[in-house]
């Protein structure tokens, strides 16, 4: 029986996925006063990329993505692409897992070894993947209002305290357009918007796969706008210098809230947001990899306990081996991964596939 998810579930998945890590580490803060412009441009780029991703599902609405790959690129090249994407999704899942374990270690669990946190995190992720996309989607539907409430509380308290100062945003446009574009591409577009490539795995589960573009864009617009508001608020509260230099700017911002000595120490709000959105980001990447493997091995979901468990352990090990320390992890994440991993996976291969699809469709029509 085909698993199916509703449009609300899909949109909430997209929103939570976009929030994952980007809401915590802050988006576009390197661009200082021009962060809003960078986020806006990245969002537009993200929507264009997303349009590209949905082209496949509109030609083959009911076919799983790995199968589409094999149809479009031929059995052998398609087979190769499937493995490349499995590796990519697992790698990114491991990276995000590392991000989150490290952030929890830095903010709340200082003496806990990373492995303990990742083990618990992956246990839940594996369980969710075993239960399937329907359960993941329903969970996201349940958690979205909660996250939005937390985000709303954050904004409300910060603004009630009158912490944001407009002068932190002046002067507008103090960088030239080339510099701004260098923040948009490759970093801004690929993270977090281009990562939506992973949703190609989920499209055919949608009630109406043909509308995946419309629903997805709704999700991108909601999440992009929220991220923009949050980023600008952080900048207005902390000032560009501090915001740029902070590992968890959202936490630094919220710790300034002290309302009449009653409402203060609101750090748990940020921690809750961090854990929930992080869970969804890892789960979706992991689910995508697992779903492709299940397709390859013709394994039904109920029989893939072993596969999921094995993959889970693999991701944990990968997340630890990925880099020896925080600095290298961040360096890789900001300088190497966007250009050498994200760009080929999110732009070059999909464009190539799109070209093949285009030719194939043309030929079929004749």
């Amino acid at each position: 029986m085909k698993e199916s998810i509703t449009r609300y579930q899909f949109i909430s998945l997209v929103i939570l996925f976009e929030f994952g890590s980007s809401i915590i580490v802050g988006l576009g803060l390197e661009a200082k006063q021009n962060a809003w412009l960078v986020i806006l441009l990245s969002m537009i780029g993200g929507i264009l990329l997303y349009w590209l991703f949905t082209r496949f599902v509109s030609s083959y609405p009911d076919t799983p993505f790995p199968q589409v790959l094999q149809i479009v690129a031929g059995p052998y090249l398609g087979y190769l692409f499937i493995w490349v994407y499995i590796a990519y999704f697992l790698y990114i899942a491991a990276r995000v897992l590392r991000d989150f374990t490290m952030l929890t270690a830095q903010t709340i669990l200082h003496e806990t070894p990373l492995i303990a946190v990742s083990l618990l995190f992956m246990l839940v992720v594996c369980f969710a993947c075993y239960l399937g996309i329907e359960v993941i989607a329903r969970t996201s539907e349940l958690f979205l209002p909660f996250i939005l409430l937390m985000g709303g509380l954050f904004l409300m308290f910060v603004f009630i305290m009158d912490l944001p100062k407009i002068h932190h945003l002046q002067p507008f446009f103090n960088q030239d357009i080339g510099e701004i574009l260098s923040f948009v591409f490759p970093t801004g577009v690929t993270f977090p918007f281009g990562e939506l490539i992973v949703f190609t795995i989920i499209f055919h589960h949608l009630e109406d796969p043909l509308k995946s573009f419309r629903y997805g864009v709704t999700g991108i617009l909601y999440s992009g706008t929220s991220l923009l508001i949050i980023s600008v608020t952080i900048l207005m509260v902390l000032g560009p210098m501090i915001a740029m230099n902070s590992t968890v700017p959202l936490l630094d911002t919220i710790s300034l809230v002290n309302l009449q000595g009653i409402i203060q120490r609101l750090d748990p709000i940020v921690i809750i947001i961090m854990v929930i959105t992080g869970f969804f980001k890892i789960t979706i990447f992991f689910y995508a990899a697992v779903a492709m493997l299940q397709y390859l091995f013709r394994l039904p979901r109920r029989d893939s306990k072993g596969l999921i468990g094995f993959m889970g352990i693999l991701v944990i090990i990968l997340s630890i081996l990925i880099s020896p320390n925080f600095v290298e992890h961040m360096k890789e994440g900001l300088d190497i991964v966007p250009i050498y991993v994200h760009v080929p996976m999110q732009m070059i291969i999909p464009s190539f596939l799109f070209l093949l699809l285009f030719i194939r469709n043309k030929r079929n029509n004749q």
Partner: protein
Amino acid sequence: MKRRLLLLSFTLLFLLTSLTGCWSKRELDEIAIATGLGLDKTENGYKFTVQIINPAEVAAKTISTRTAVTTYTSEGRSLFEALRGLTDKAPRKVYLSHIRKVVFGEELARDGISETLDFLTRDHEFRTDFHIAVAKGMEAHDLLTILTPMEKIPANKMYFSMQTSSEYWAPSLIIKIQQLISTILEDGKEPVISGVYNVGDIKRGSNLSNVEDVGAPTDVRVDSLGVFKGDQLIGWMDQLQSTSYNYIMGNVKNTAEYFECKDKEGSITLEVMEASSNKTVTIKDGEPHFNVEVSVEGNIADVECQIDLMKLDTIKQLEKHFSEQLSILFNDTVSDVQEDFKSDVFGFGDLIHRTKPKYWRTIKDGWEEQFPEVEVTVEATVKINRTGTISNPYEFKKEE
């Protein structure tokens, strides 16, 4: 079925032990909660003083002969070394999340505080909501040993004094760490930090007898501002200058303004209810001219000379008189700061940067030399709203 049960119990056991969050737990009776932190310079490093709550005494209902706080001091080549050095003196590990006040010794402040700011923001235990101050003319260590009446915890007393006076008394100002760091880092503005100092004998102040006295002979005051250039303290503004500084920066919320009566003996005091300032810059012949408009609204709170308050004319005259007086004060302060400190604490450079970024790029490098020479006009406008619960001052006959 049996296998399922086994798996379930295993999972439950695993979650039970791992989700309790006991990994790096620290019970309340194992930590020493620090409320105040004092940093001083020594020959080869820092002196680190923490003021630690003595929980039994803070909660005590009966009066005892022990103090509510204890201070521990340790020296080290770096701040973190000094902090860890405390463990061989204090019986518990110092917990820094509840720090209310960080005080720099004047000597350290004059040498530069930027090295210490790294630790204060990098260490995860620090939150960012504490107040920063400089111990005026003394070591931070001495300041933290003074016991205060009313508030059992001296760091709390400083915290609340500053909180209250920043709302009701113009010369004082709250500075938090992030604001301080960005002011030091950004071009075209320099920081000020409020000064804390003692009145009375320090030795007496550290004794419990200090708070047994009704008048508390030794106490801590918070009303002056230290002017910084970069990260170094270069001087102190007096109370009037601090007041003007806060007016010009738009920090004043509520305060009292004392004015001499015109042509008559006596004085009038205004309760300022609202104050705001607006800074603008114009460029004439390649030179920047700054214009600051300070508008003050208030009620008459205290009249000690004979005037007829019920006349519209009198109020108009008073407003004019007050405006002139304030304008003179503000202008004097600005030129004093320009001459004596040569430090752009008003953020005039930042104002150019924000509003005229292109022009700023041309003068940015020479701003430090240019600042003492720039032309600044401050104009104050006072508006009187109400005159209190009596109309005219009583005409008491005075014995000559």
